[in-house]
């Protein structure tokens, strides 16, 4: 813990000192390089310190999540999701959010409540599919039959197939090697499809055609509920199933983090946040798939950061709030994005150096994408003065920054997770 505090303080001090010493005109251009420098130093320090305690092992380990309280976890996601929804409405209140948008978000929230409170696997999976289908119908009504929206419809129906078929295969209890692989593929395909894991993520392009408020249910509800559902299957499923899921989650999560990290770096400003979230879904899946408590903590921390930063970025005229949110997301120590992604790396160290290297590559891509976002926010902030309307967004941005400093207590308070 002392290492974390030291790195946090050093990172914050370095960022503050170098930023304040720079001339105002050049700051926008140099922000990404500064972030890269500070993050690289923080990552090197923390990995050097933590790898001594986590010797890498060539074998996948399942069952490290044994002491997890699933009810507490679900309750935390439930309370956090509703809070994030209210925060998002508060930040975007001046954009004239329509009743249909609000109704969809609340309706999906109610289905998410049911999904988190039921105990059986089949109802949980069907409710997840229902959430995705409701989202598709709403987006189809708002944006019309665009290719990406059609892809979401296809995705909803495919994951319904996958989940229903998995539910048929899993409870038979007569599974040999091939059906375990089949069930693992179906469950990961279905649950990963809800969150937008490669190769079932083409529909994520649809969010760029929508307003932030319309796309919010995916960020606030679908991703967290899918991650909790994966954690639930990993904890309570048979070992043969969880081993297959672990391999798939780590492999597909890495692919998602790298592919969407690249996409985020080259994205248009209006779509950049969604690409960054998409790449972080890859990190979350690697974290949960690693089967390590630190990996799960990383996924939950990233969910918390996106609840806050996503709300701040939903303010259409925000500049300073956007800057805070981008820095919080970026991976610069000691803020939320850094702690979440680095905990993923630390939790996955036993998977070997290749996985760690690929995760660090994804980390760097996320940093570059967020740096580009921060640079645009700095330009906007220089062009316009402070605005009172940004206050709620600023509060969310500050919270996204600060959550990395108090990650352990927050995770214990919100999800009952003891690191």
């Amino acid at each position: 813990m002392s290492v974390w505090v030291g790195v946090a303080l050093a990172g914050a001090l370095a960022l503050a000192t170098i930023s304040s010493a720079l001339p105002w005109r050049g700051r926008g251009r140099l922000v990404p390089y500064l972030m890269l420098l500070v993050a690289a130093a923080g990552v090197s320090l923390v990995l050097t310190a933590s790898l001594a305690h986590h010797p890498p092992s060539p074998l996948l380990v399942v069952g490290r999540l044994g002491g997890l309280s699933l009810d507490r976890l679900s309750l935390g996601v439930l309370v956090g999701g509703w809070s994030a929804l209210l925060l998002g409405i508060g930040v975007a209140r001046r954009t004239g959010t329509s009743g249909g948008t609000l109704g969809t978000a609340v309706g999906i929230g109610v289905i998410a409540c049911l999904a988190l409170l039921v105990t059986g696997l089949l109802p949980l999976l069907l409710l997840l599919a229902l959430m995705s289908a409701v989202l598709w119908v709403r987006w189809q009504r708002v944006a019309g039959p665009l290719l990406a929206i059609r892809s979401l419809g296809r995705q909803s129906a495919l994951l319904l197939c996958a989940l229903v078929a998995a539910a048929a295969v899993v409870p038979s209890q007569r599974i040999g090697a091939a059906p375990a692989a089949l069930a693992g593929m179906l469950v990961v395909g279905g649950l990963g499809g809800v969150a937008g894991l490669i190769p079932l993520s083409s529909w994520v392009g649809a969010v760029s055609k929508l307003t932030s408020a319309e796309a919010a249910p995916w960020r606030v509800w679908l991703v967290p509920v899918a991650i909790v559902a994966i954690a639930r299957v990993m904890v309570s499923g048979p070992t043969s199933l969880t081993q297959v899921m672990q391999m798939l989650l780590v492999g597909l999560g890495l692919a998602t983090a790298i592919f969407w990290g690249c996409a985020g770096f080259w994205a248009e400003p209006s779509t950049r946040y969604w690409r960054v979230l998409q790449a972080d879904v890859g990190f979350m899946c690697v974290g949960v798939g690693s089967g390590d408590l630190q990996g799960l903590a990383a996924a939950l921390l990233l969910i918390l950061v996106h609840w806050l930063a996503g709300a701040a970025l939903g303010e259409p005229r925000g500049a300073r709030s956007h800057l805070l949110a981008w820095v919080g997301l970026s991976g610069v120590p000691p803020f939320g994005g850094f702690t979440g992604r680095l905990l993923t790396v630390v939790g996955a160290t036993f998977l070997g150096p290749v996985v760690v290297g690929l995760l660090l590559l994804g980390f760097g891509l996320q940093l570059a994408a967020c740096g580009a976002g921060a640079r645009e926010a700095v330009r906007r902030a220089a062009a316009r003065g402070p605005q009172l309307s940004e206050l709620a967004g600023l509060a969310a941005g500050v919270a996204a920054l600060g959550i990395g400093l108090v990650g352990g207590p927050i995770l214990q308070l919100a999800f009952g997770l003891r690191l």
Partner: protein
Amino acid sequence: MNWAAVLAGFGFAAGALALFSIGPRGMALSAAGLGLGMGGVASLSSGPIGFGSLAAVGLVAALLVLVSGRPGWPDPSRRLLGPGQAVDRPRVFGVRSLRAILGAAGLYTDRLLSGHLTAGTVATQGPGFACLFVVEVGMIRIGTGRGPAELGLGGLCAGMGAAGFLLLSVPGTALAVVLLAAAAPALALVALGRATPWETSG
């Protein structure tokens, strides 16, 4: 007579019908065929209750798809999705040829997989093989689908195949669970059965 083989044959026939059917009438026929075919397969271990539950879901869905097109009846797809727009995109293969190729490949894969599945107390692997084939037909219909209605039909195929397999492998399965697996996609089919296709050629 080997009833398991005969009923599995009906299951395959229902899957083939669902694979190639086109238009609202074809969808209604497919829903009825899936209900009867998968119900027959499920009845091998679950008896008349298994047959009755799946057949009822299929027949009711077929009836509702047929009547929803009549003037004066409510059209849920328009209410849900708004006025439809056509999106034209040419295909390399005709859609039925493509489905035939994918179906043949999937049939071979299902045959390999069904060798690893032990479906309850039924001696032959044929019924389990038929259920897998119907699930796989659902995947193909969704992957090659031209509109929302085909997503509904694909979902129904998967739900029926999974419900049939569930009843076949665990005879004591709660009926509510089976009905949930089969009836939720059937509801989607009814809601989307008259939705405008998005592609006009192919």
